[in-house]
C-alpha cells in the first residue's frame, strides 16, 4: 500500500516545484506591481496630506514655500467657526439631507416595486422615462423650474427662492437614480417569495412592506447613503436656489464662498475644507460595505 502511494506524492511535489528562475521573475513582477501601486497610492493620498498640513499652519506660513507646519496651529479649527457661520451651514445641510433622503425613500421604493414586480400596461414605457430622467442634464430644465418656484412663491406669499424647499420637495416626488437602482435590485428577488405571500392572501402593499423591504435592505441602505451624500456634495442646484440668501446656504455653497469672505487665509480655507471632507470620510469607514456594494450595483447591472 504505502510503497504504491509514495511515488505519486513525490511526483506531485516535483511537478509543483517551480524553477528558481521563474520564481525570481514572479517575485520581481510582484515587487514592480506593488511599487507602482504604492507610488500611485501616494499620489492619490498626497492632496489629503497637504490639506491637513496647511490646515495646521499659520497664515504666514501657508503663504510661504514651507511644507511642514511649525508651530502646529490647532486653533485654526476653532477660528473657522468664528470666521464663518459653519454651524448654520451644517444645520442647513442636515435639514436638506434628512428631509430629501426621507422623501427619496418614501417615493422611490413603491415606484421601483411597481416597475420590477408588478405587471401592467405601459410599464416599459415608464421605465424608459426613468432612464431619460436619469440622463437629462439638470441645466436643461432649471430655467422653467426656477420660474415656477419664483411664481409659486409669489402666489402663496412665501418666497421659495432663497430657501431649501425647491431642493427638498422634488425628492418627495421620486428620484430617477434611486428608482433605477432599486428596480435593478428588486429584479433579483425571486418571484417565488412574492407568490408565496400572495397565496397567503397578502396585498401588494403588505408584500412590499414585509417581504421586499426586508430582502432589499442593502439596496435601500445604499440609496439612503447615496442620497445623503448627494445632498451633502451637490452644488449646482443649491447655488441656484439659495445663493441670494446666505442664511440658508448649505455647506457646499458656504464653503465655495468661504475664500471670498476671508480673502487670503489659505490655512483657514484648508481647515474648513478638511472639516467638510471629514463627515463623508467618516461615513465611508462606518458604512464601507454599503458603499462598495452600492457603487458596484450601479455599474454591473447598468
Amino acid at each position, binding site marked *: 500500500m504505502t510503497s504504491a502511494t509514495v511515488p505519486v506524492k513525490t511526483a506531485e511535489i516535483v511537478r509543483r516545484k517551480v524553477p528558481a528562475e521563474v520564481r525570481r521573475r514572479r517575485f520581481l513582477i510582484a515587487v514592480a*506591481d*506593488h511599487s507602482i*501601486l504604492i507610488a*500611485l*497610492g501616494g499620489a*492619490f*493620498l*498626497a*492632496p*489629503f496630506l*497637504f*490639506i491637513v498640513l496647511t490646515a495646521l499652519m499659520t497664515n504666514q506660513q501657508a*503663504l*510661504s*514655500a514651507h511644507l511642514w507646519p511649525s508651530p502646529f496651529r490647532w486653533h485654526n479649527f476653532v477660528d473657522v467657526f468664528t470666521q464663518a457661520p459653519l454651524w448654520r451651514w451644517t444645520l442647513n445641510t442636515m435639514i436638506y439631507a434628512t428631509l430629501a433622503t426621507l422623501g427619496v425613500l418614501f417615493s*422611490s421604493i*413603491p*415606484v421601483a416595486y411597481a416597475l420590477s414586480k408588478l405587471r401592467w400596461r405601459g410599464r416599459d414605457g415608464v421605465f424608459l*422615462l426613468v432612464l*431619460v430622467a436619469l*440622463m*437629462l*442634464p439638470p*441645466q*436643461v*430644465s*432649471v430655467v*422653467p423650474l426656477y*420660474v*415656477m418656484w*419664483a411664481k409659486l412663491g409669489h402666489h402663496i406669499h412665501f418666497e421659495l427662492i432663497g430657501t431649501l424647499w425647491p431642493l427638498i420637495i*422634488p425628492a*418627495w*416626488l*421620486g428620484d430617477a437614480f434611486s428608482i433605477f437602482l432599486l428596480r435593478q435590485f428588486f429584479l433579483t428577488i425571486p418571484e417565488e417569495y412574492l407568490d408565496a405571500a400572495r397565496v397567503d392572501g397578502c396585498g401588494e402593499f403588505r408584500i412590499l412592506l414585509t417581504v421586499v423591504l426586508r430582502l432589499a435592505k442593502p439596496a435601500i441602505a445604499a440609496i439612503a447613503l447615496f442620497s445623503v451624500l448627494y445632498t451633502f*456634495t451637490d*452644488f*449646482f442646484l443649491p*447655488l441656484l436656489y439659495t445663493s441670494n440668501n446666505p442664511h440658508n446656504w448649505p*455647506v*457646499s455653497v458656504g*464653503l*465655495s464662498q*468661504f*475664500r*471670498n469672505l476671508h480673502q*487670503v487665509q*489659505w490655512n483657514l480655507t*484648508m481647515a474648513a*475644507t478638511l472639516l467638510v*471632507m471629514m463627515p*463623508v470620510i467618516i461615513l465611508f469607514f462606518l458604512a*464601507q460595505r454599503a*458603499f*462598495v456594494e452600492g*457603487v*458596484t450595483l450601479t*455599474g*454591473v447591472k*447598468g
Partner: protein
Amino acid sequence: MSPWIVGFAVFIAYPLFFSVYLSFTHYDLLNPPRWIGLANYKYMFGDDRTQIFQSIRNTLFIIAVGVPLQVLFSFGIAVMLTRAKMGIGFFRTVFYLPALAPPVAATLGFVYLLNPATGPVNTALKAIGIQGPLWFNDPSWAKPSLVVLSIWGVGNTMIIFLAAVLDVPKQLYESAELDGAGPFQRLRMVTLPTISPVILFSVVIGVIAGLQYFTQAYVAAGVAAGQASQAGGTSTLELGYPGGSTLFYPILLYYHGFTFFQMGYASAMAVLLLAVSFALTLVIIRNSRRWVHYGGAVR
C-alpha cells in the same frame, strides 16, 4: 406610482416643453415673456458665437480629454489591484477616498496645491529644478488642471471596473494561457472584451457628466481669479477665468439665466444642450454594438 407620475410631469416633462417655448421669447422674470421667434438662436450663432463656441470647445475638451483618461486610469488601477497579492483592501480604499471628497472641497484643495507661487506641487517641482506652470492661472493649463482633478476622483468608476475585472471567469484566462497568450494578449483578448459593457457604461456616464460639468470649474475659476486680483489687481469679474478657458457651456448658461436673468436666451442654450446630449448618447450607444461584447444571457 402616481406621485412619481406627478413628479415626472412637474419636474421633467413640463420644464422641457416650457424651455422650448421660452427659447422663442424674451423673458427677464419681471415682465411676461415676449415672443421673438428665432432671435435667440440667431444671436447664439451670430453676435454671441465667439463666447458660445468657446464654451462648446471647452466642454468638448473636458469630454474628449477627460473621459478617456478617467476610463484609462480607473481600468489601469483596477487591473493593478487584481494583480496585487498584498493589501488590496488598503489600496482600494486609498484610490476610492478622493471620490468621496465633496467637489467644492476637492477643488479648493487643488487650487491651493497647484497655486503657482507657493503651492506644494510647484515647490516640489522647483526642488528638482523644474519651473512649474501657473496651473489654474494660465489659460492653457487651467483645463488640464481640471482634468487632473477629475482623475483624482475616479474612485467610483474604479470600483465598478474592479468588480467587473474580478468577475471575468478564470477559465477564460486559463485557456488563453494554454493557447500561449502572454499577459498583454490576455488583457486585450480576454479582459477587455469581457468587460466592454462596463467600459461603455463608464464612457456614457462620463460624457453625461462632462456635458453638465459645472462645480469644479465654477469654484476653481472664482478662487483663482480672487487670488490673481490680490496679487496683481486685475478684474475679478471675468467669465471663465483665466481668459475664458474655464467657461464651460453650463456655466455660460448659468450666467445668462441667473446672473443676467436672460431667461429666454438661457432656455435656447438649454434646448441646444438637450439636443446635443440626446444625440451624443444615441451615437455612443449605436456605435457601441460594434465593439461591446455581451456575454451569456441577453437582458
